[in-house]
């Protein structure tokens, strides 16, 4: 069991309804995709925001990573849509 900070941005944040939370993850969650599935299973805005992984990007400890990246030892995980700055 590890407690981590979860951050959400743009329409992911709006659908879920909050931009930040702390969560204690089950030990069997090993990668970002597993975390997304676990959060989506909460239903409601989580399912709406996180149901389609092809629309999501992630950062682990503020580094952009693919969704199969490990989250073991992570302190902060951010979930968001593809970036659109500039």
């Amino acid at each position, binding site marked *: 069991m590890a407690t981590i900070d979860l*951050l959400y*941005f*743009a*329409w992911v944040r709006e659908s879920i309804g909050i931009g930040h939370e702390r969560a204690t993850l089950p030990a069997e969650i090993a990668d970002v995709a597993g975390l997304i599935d676990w959060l989506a299973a909460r239903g409601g805005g989580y399912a709406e925001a996180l149901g389609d992984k092809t629309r999501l990007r992630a*950062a682990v400890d*503020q580094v*952009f990573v693919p969704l199969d990246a490990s989250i073991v030892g992570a302190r902060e995980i*951010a979930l*968001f*849509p*593809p*970036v*659109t*700055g*500039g």
Partner: protein
Amino acid sequence: MIRVLVTDAAIDVAGELDALERAGGGAVASFTGLVREDSGVEELFLEHYPDATEKALRDLAVEAMQRWSLAAATVIHRVGAMKPGERIVFVGTASAHRAAALEACAFLIDRLKTDAPFWKRETRGQGARWVGERDSDRDAADRWKR
């Protein structure tokens, strides 16, 4: 010399260009991105990932400084609410000769669009809409891969 700034204040392009011209190179290039006036957008809101944004911009500036041996690189990005015609982003480079300054400037804005955690939300009369990813932006960033 690297200058990176994420700000909710207006971007002073003249002041930034002056600083780049004092960096000791013979060439300065820049790109300014504006909120488009077309398609009825009344407000553009820029959200970002506060703790990660400046690092992402600095990493790009460091890569450009090394790859093109620049004298200076400046990357400034607005956040918050903006009106059509306002400046969203400024990228400037200084180098000994024009080719390096121009190429590094294009590299910085192309990669910023895919590598830095900013999200645009457009407001028109009826409501707000998050801007989607564009394949052309992905292709433009990919051309700088080595």
